[in-house]
């Protein structure tokens, strides 16, 4: 059946390819060139400045704050999310009778946990902006109700608490996804292995360490890459929720926010593109390291 084959293939591929080249590939390619210019958005006014933009990045204290904050997010958010996700997933599976049965209602738990993952990060950020509100917010209200009123704080306004507050939101919104993901991975482990562990007298922790963890390592590795990429972003939450945004005093500045501000508020398009390239290489490095060094990263989780 050769007749009409090429015509069909062309019709099937060309529209999508045109769209892909115009809106995806060409912007990615242009970004690398723009990052070497001083372009401010005026047509024909881009001068080639070589690595100047990159040198300026190192002296831009707000950008340095952003890199530091992204680095912290990159370490803390995946570790905490994966730890909670693994804990909940193994409890759901093995917390029941005899240490190797699913807990009653495990499906219902998964449904509840998963929901925040589906919300737009903007919705999540607006919601948590309310939760953190010092006077009327849920968090301080809960602390006062528990008699811990002394711990109430203006979470997003104090430099030492703002970034942890952002991290908590990111963890909150993503744990459910990883519970479901790790649950699927644990489902794939043959039941006999858990039974053998119980017969050998292994407790819950030993079973987790010696059976569950080694066998879900690949999934944990994938989770690290996904969470790491999300932690390098964090733009929507920071932009909507924090004071400034990015404050107080750069405490929650992230690379995406610096990029957005430099490009679309200050019109420094060349400089902003250099930030984009830096972010790209950070993402690339992260993916390569996480996929190569998977063995070590799982040990860190335990």
């Amino acid at each position, binding site marked *: 059946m050769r007749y*009409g*084959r090429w*015509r*069909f*293939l062309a019709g*099937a*591929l060309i529209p*999508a*390819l045109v*769209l*892909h080249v*115009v*809106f995806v*590939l*060409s*912007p*990615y390619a242009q*970004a690398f060139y*723009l990052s070497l210019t001083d372009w401010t*958005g005026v047509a024909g006014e881009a001068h080639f400045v070589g690595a100047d933009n990159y040198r300026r990045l190192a002296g831009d204290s707000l950008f340095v704050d952003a890199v530091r904050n992204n680095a912290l997010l990159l370490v803390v958010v995946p570790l905490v999310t994966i730890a909670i996700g693994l804990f*909940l997933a193994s409890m759901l599976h093995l*917390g029941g009778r005899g240490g190797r049965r699913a807990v009653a209602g495990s499906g219902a*738990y*998964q449904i*509840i*946990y*998963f*929901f*925040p993952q*589906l919300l*737009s*990060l*903007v*919705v999540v950020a*607006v*919601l*948590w*902006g309310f939760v953190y509100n010092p006077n*009327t917010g*849920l968090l301080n209200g809960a602390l006062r109700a528990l008699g811990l009123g002394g711990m109430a704080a203006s979470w997003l306004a104090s430099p030492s608490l703002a970034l942890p507050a952002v991290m908590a939101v990111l963890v*909150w919104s993503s744990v459910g*996804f990883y519970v*479901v993901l790790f649950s*699927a991975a644990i489902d794939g482990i043959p039941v006999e292995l858990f039974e053998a562990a119980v017969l050998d007298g292994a407790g819950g922790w030993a079973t987790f360490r010696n059976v569950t963890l080694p066998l879900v390592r690949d999934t944990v590795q*994938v989770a690290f890459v*996904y969470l790491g990429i999300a932690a*390098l*972003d964090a733009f*929507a939450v920071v932009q*909507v929720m924090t004071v400034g945004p990015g404050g107080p005093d750069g405490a929650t500045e992230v*690379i*995406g926010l610096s*990029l*957005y501000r430099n*490009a679309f508020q200050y019109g420094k*398009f060349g400089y*902003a593109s250099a930030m*984009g390239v830096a*972010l790209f290489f950070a*993402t690339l490095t992260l993916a390569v390291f996480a996929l190569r060094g998977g063995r070590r990263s799982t040990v860190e989780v335990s």
Partner: protein
Amino acid sequence: MLAWSVVTALPLLWAVVSSFKTDDEILNHPWSLPSTPQPGNWARAWTEASIGRYFFNSLIVVGGALALTMLLGSLVAYALARYEFRGNRIIYYTFVAAMFFPVFLALVPLFFVVQQLGLLGTYQGLILVYAAYAVPFTVFFLHAFFRSLPAEVAEAAFLDGCSHGAVFFRVMLPMARPGLVAVGIFNFLGLWNQYLLPLVLNPDPDRYVLAQGLAALSVSQGYRSDWSGLFAGLTIAMLPVLIAYVAFQRHIRAGMTAGAVK
């Protein structure tokens, strides 16, 4: 486990309950239930705070982008999965590689591409860009799906005199329905929740999509202290996703986690 359920559900329930309270109750009794439910908050958010308009903007843009994404994505996935030709692998990787690039890298040039095409702040512009960024995952997901379908049915259709296009639309697409549903729901959620792209490419407040409108409101309404209206807007923004989740929760979790594992 129970504790995490509370941590997950409590802020959400609190927002929904607060959307029925008066401003005074929100400020002075953050924990109590509303003494009399205030549906007026919802009406005010929907009309005066423009949540209704943002909602319809989102519907138009996401509906258009979803239709375009599914059409183009399934065509590309099918063509690449079912036809051998030179350049097949290159085209496949050209699409799939784009999934792993941060959108921030493309942001500045993308703004100018859209501007030069005269599409800045238009529905068409957003639809095309949304679709362009959703097609790679769709191709990736459906490519595997089309490969797993039996070839005999398509061959029989060819013998009956069907053209290539007819085989695709009449035979293969209906067979691929489970895959199309899964990736369709996934794309719906992803597109509905877009924020960065509309923030940059959609500066006209009349055309704001829901996420963008809500973010703008949380600043402006915060100054006007219309807390109850803002809670109502937030709840309205959560509803479509909640409804989709209740209706399709198995598909959603399976589809999203499958994308992560493969």
